[in-house]
């Protein structure tokens, strides 16, 4: 059985990196750096998943 945490972790690290790499994109109704604030939790979550999967090995 594959450890599901690995693909989930890799996916969110990749998406998180893509978002963090483009922090200055702006949306019409907010001046916040939405990609940065949305990407960082994904990066963190993906990292935790990968760490949990690695620890199990």
């Amino acid at each position: 059985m594959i450890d599901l945490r690995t693909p989930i972790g890799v996916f969110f690290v990749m998406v998180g990196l893509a978002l963090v790499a483009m922090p200055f994109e702006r949306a019409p109704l907010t001046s916040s750096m939405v990609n940065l604030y949305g990407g960082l939790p994904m990066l963190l979550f993906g990292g935790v998943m990968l760490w949990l999967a690695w620890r199990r090995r």
Partner: protein
Amino acid sequence: MTLGSVDYAILALYFAFVLGIGFLIRRRVQSSEDFLTSHRSVPVWITSLAFLAANLGAQEVVGMCASGAKYGLMTAHFYWLGAVPAMLFVGVFMMPFYYGSRARSVPEYLKLRFDEKTRVLNAATFAVMTLFSSGVSMYALGKLFQLVLGWEFTNSILLSAAIVLIYTFLGGLTSAIYNEVLQFFLIVLGFSPLAILAVIKCGGWSGMAARLPAVMLETWRYTGSSSQNPMGVEVFGLVAGLGFVLSFGYWCTDFLVIQRAMAANSMSAARRTPVLAAFPKMVMPFIVIVPGIAALALSHMGVGYSLPSKGDGLDYDQALTTLMAKFYPSGMLGVGLTALMASFMSGMAGNVTAFNTVFTYDLYQGHIRKNAPDRHYLWVGRAATVGGIALSIAAAYLAQRYNNIMDVLQLVFSFVNAPLFATFLLGMFWKRTTGHGAFTGLLCGTAAAAATHGLTIAEGKGGWITSVHTFPSTMAQNFWIAIFAWSACFTVTIAVSLLTAPKPEGELHGLVYGLTDLPRDPEEPWYRRPAPLALVVCVVLVILNVIFW
């Protein structure tokens, strides 16, 4: 709404991962049990999240956001009253019978407990309902993507159906469950920022409260009378209709969700599955309902956002997508749309994997070819997956052709699901219940539901026999239809059971309370036992209801 290249890249990455999971799992699918039941081998954290995600279809996410804008925080009753208590009940009290009976499906449990005719009635109605449900969900997604992105209806549904087909065909239930977990995290991480951004823009919770009627931010305070709240329901109809009949009818008997718990790797894990799922379920209103409420508040603020119009009113169904267009830049927009696609796919895969199991075991093996080699049933399971998706696509086109088919289907679901809980309640907890009683009760419950609909009117719907009562909303009508259906099934099942011979007690071991050794695990720490965990959920639930009274 226009997508950038990074948005398409995120969508493509997601498709690659779900297909990749299907290919990885394919290698361990050797038998029909592997394909259709995961061979009861899935860890509890995965079954818990899949239990929740299988219910998180596109209509759930888009619809709950729309209901948030239309009815306010009262919509949270669909979670805190209409889901969590039933999830605790099925985990603590009913799962020992589902899992302990070794049944492979809910209809098969009905066969073991009652008889073949009750099983076939449940299997046939469930199979038809799942296909239509999947098709209607597909239709909703196709329309949404057509409206928001200008994608062709056919292209949208064929693309998503093809991907679901590939990963469920390859890896069966395990693949669907694993992808549901990925989809769950994507939905949570994709939509949470939207809720936060929209509420901040409103000036926080107090800012929303200042711009909306008080009824929009309360759950119980205005349920004393149906005229006081936008749902048009009063406290009895709400608690008995939604909180008891409809919610227990769905969460405790619908094989779509029960199948996830039955795939767990032990009895303890199966019992904890719905209980653990209740924790995130309690939080979901803040992710899917609050953005809808914020959308309505923003419409009153003149900040450049307004809910689109539809006829004389507002098009609440577009609350979620219009908020995304205003608050998400390229990047997060791709994540949000991928989450929307994921919610659709998890709902569809859930329906298809439940359908192929019921078709293979309860209809095909039960009535068409009984003693074939297992390899044959594996082949039938895969063929049923292809057939189920093809029929879902046909149902999507049917829904496109007949606009009111969604209303009709919702109604039929409530006709069938509401009485079913009475059958299970009596079957599991009263050993005197008979097969004839269960079967007659189910038919009478469904007939009572149809009669109630035919005799009452709400928002121009129903009253096709004559009109003896008018409900203030279709929601109130649906709740009362469910109450009458359940009561009729409960009463008739008891009456017919008392007039017919019950099964010998020796045949009911493992199937009925009082004749089954219930699992006890005093050695386990409290956080690995369902009852103490359910108690924690209850405490949190009470706190949430008091805060948002």
